[in-house]
């Protein structure tokens, strides 16, 4: 049965077709709209005169002010998710008994059984100044007055971490799980302590999981304005809302498209800068621990502590 073989890329055709129809085409349309203009009060867009004017309009102080706010919530939320999710994922993948891992994974997924908006509004009820949490804390005497958390950035961060934490834990769990015991044992045999094994072996090998987790949390977070609006009120003003208001309320698809394109570019730029920063920060570390196979090149500066070997 070897007479007919599908070309290898055939496996990728469904994904490419999907991306082409549901990603490339709509984005191309948005880019096209963004060069047009709004023809009158009852029209949404027209493209007979093309210009960059919509981009100039979109580059307003409002956009940057809102974007800064969004970026703050995006970065802080992602950082907290990483700090909270990393130990949990490590524990689930390494320390917890293998027979329980399925159950633990299922527990991480439990919040997804309820609708996103319902979960968020649930927090609104809990955090209300006259809600049960506030009443309980006041009766115990932990806080003097009504709980003043709803409609602050603190509430937004709480909601964001709650909603996105599973998206951080799952890729981290898979990454830690794939590192496997033998490498950790080998590291221990070669004299590394627990902390060094984690920093030098487990964490570098789990790097794809960390990157996936950070992107999975950060990027949807930048586009999510539901959590922020429900829990942050006026303090949860997000840039996604700005784009939505141009499309829906102002019915100015040209300006909305220009904002959307700008947003895509700025998020890509942010991710690139973030990646660059991480690369620069870890550069000295990586230089010091270069693994050189075979004869060392004469010019290469090999670290004196050559017994340390990293993957």
């Amino acid at each position, binding site marked *: 049965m070897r007479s007919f073989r599908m070309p290898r890329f055939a496996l990728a055709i469904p*994904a490419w077709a999907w991306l082409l129809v549901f*990603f490339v085409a709509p984005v191309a349309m948005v880019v096209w709209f963004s060069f047009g203009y709004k023809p009158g009060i009852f029209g949404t867009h027209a493209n007979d005169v093309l210009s960059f004017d919509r981009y100039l309009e979109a580059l307003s102080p409002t956009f940057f002010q809102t974007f800064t706010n969004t970026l703050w919530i995006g970065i802080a939320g992602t950082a907290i998710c990483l700090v909270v999710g990393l130990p949990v994922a490590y524990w689930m993948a390494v320390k917890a008994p293998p027979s329980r891992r399925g159950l633990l994974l299922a527990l991480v997924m439990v919040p997804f059984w309820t609708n996103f908006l319902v979960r968020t509004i649930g927090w609104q009820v809990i955090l209300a100044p*006259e809600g049960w949490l506030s009443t309980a804390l006041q009766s115990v005497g932990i806080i003097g007055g009504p709980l003043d958390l709803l409609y602050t950035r603190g509430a937004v961060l709480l909601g964001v971490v709650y909603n996105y934490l599973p998206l951080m834990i799952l890729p981290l769990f898979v990454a830690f799980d794939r590192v496997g015991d033998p490498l950790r044992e080998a590291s221990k045999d070669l004299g590394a302590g627990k902390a060094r094994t984690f920093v030098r072996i487990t964490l570098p090998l789990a790097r794809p999981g960390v990157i996936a987790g950070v992107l999975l949390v950060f*990027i949807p977070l930048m*586009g999510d304005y539901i959590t922020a609006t429900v829990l942050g009120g*006026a303090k949860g003003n997000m840039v996604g809302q700005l784009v939505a*208001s141009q*499309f829906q*309320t102002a019915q100015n698809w040209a300006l909305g498209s220009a904002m959307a394109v700008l947003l*895509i570019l700025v998020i890509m730029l942010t991710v690139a800068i973030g990646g660059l920063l991480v690369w620069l920060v870890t550069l000295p570390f990586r230089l010091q621990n270069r693994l050189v196979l075979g004869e060392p090149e004469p010019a290469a500066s090999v670290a004196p502590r050559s017994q340390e070997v990293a993957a």
Partner: protein
Amino acid sequence: MSENRPHVRILASTSAAKIISSELSRRRFLSFAAAAGATGLLAACSPGGATGTAPRATGGELESDLSIYTWGDYDAPDVLAAFTDELGPKITLDSFGSNEELISKLVAAKGTSGYDIVVPTGVFIPQMIENGLLSELNLDLIPNLEYMDPAFLGRAWDPQNAYSICKAWGTTGFVYDKTVITRELTTWADFLDAAQNEASGRMSVLDDPGDLTGAYFWANGIDWNTTDEDELAAAEDFLVNTLAPNIAAFDSYPGGSAIPQGTHVLMQSWNGDSRLGILESPDPDRWQWVFPGPETEIWMDNWAIAAGAPNPEAAHAFINYVLEPENSLAELDYIGYHTGATGIEQAAADAGLPMLDLVFFTPEQIDTMREGEVNEAQQRRVDIWNKTKAAAGA
């Protein structure tokens, strides 16, 4: 997204090398796909276009289904169930959150949306007629129109009621917590003043450009549909620099949770929503509804039939059915807004419904209500609204 991986040379058999290299390119594809998907959260919409004319109902047999696209929780379930029991068509409900959402969906579907009945707000109806989104009503099939109060028929946006009939109407005012704001508030100027003083940081405004700018225009005796740039600039200056720092939330439905949970002490709100919120509050006496002077809004939502409606006969039968006085009263009881039927005020009082001063208004009050317009200042109002939001969130 390019990762700085060290170059790895792999010695492998010819067959294994193929698999390894395709595995590596598969990974590259996946990481590219993840990056592409990541930035692609903002998807596009389809281009607009005019729709064809719809089949008109002639009074023939009712179809077996009826699809209604309306605002969330905007019809009494009992009335819908009774319609199906008595006349047959099964009702499918779907809801939208803004007129713009309704319009974009109908525009994109070009008459194939599958919706029969839609419920747009009056000021959007000329735009919808012009773009061929609505089909003309056959008023012969809606004899119960006679129960409507003529005051709510023949409005400016559809003088002959050729496309639309009043479903419910309401107004914009505000609610405050009497335990925190102890003085009496009666006007929009009082609202703006309290917002900067007692209620600072604990007040909300409606999440709507017209109502946000409206609060300023009404307080200062300016037509809220103004297109005068000086007046709009003055509104922007006040809202962005003076009011915004005091705003805690942009909330269109404070009656849903903010009033029952006591989240804020001053809230701009619609009358029916305020009424439901106060009725649900554990301590209703705390809250005071204000119908503010000197001017305020009137809005009216309307029954209309979408162009290309698949079940026009059932749609006409339904509109006729809800206009029957007893059904109209059931609707009012459920949603808390005046349905425009003649004599419904007496009927509601006879039925002992609570807090009717938030549903019915005196002719003098109605005289101070102004309709909005979707005009060339719409973009400017959205800008002001966005700037206010940015300033409030800073």
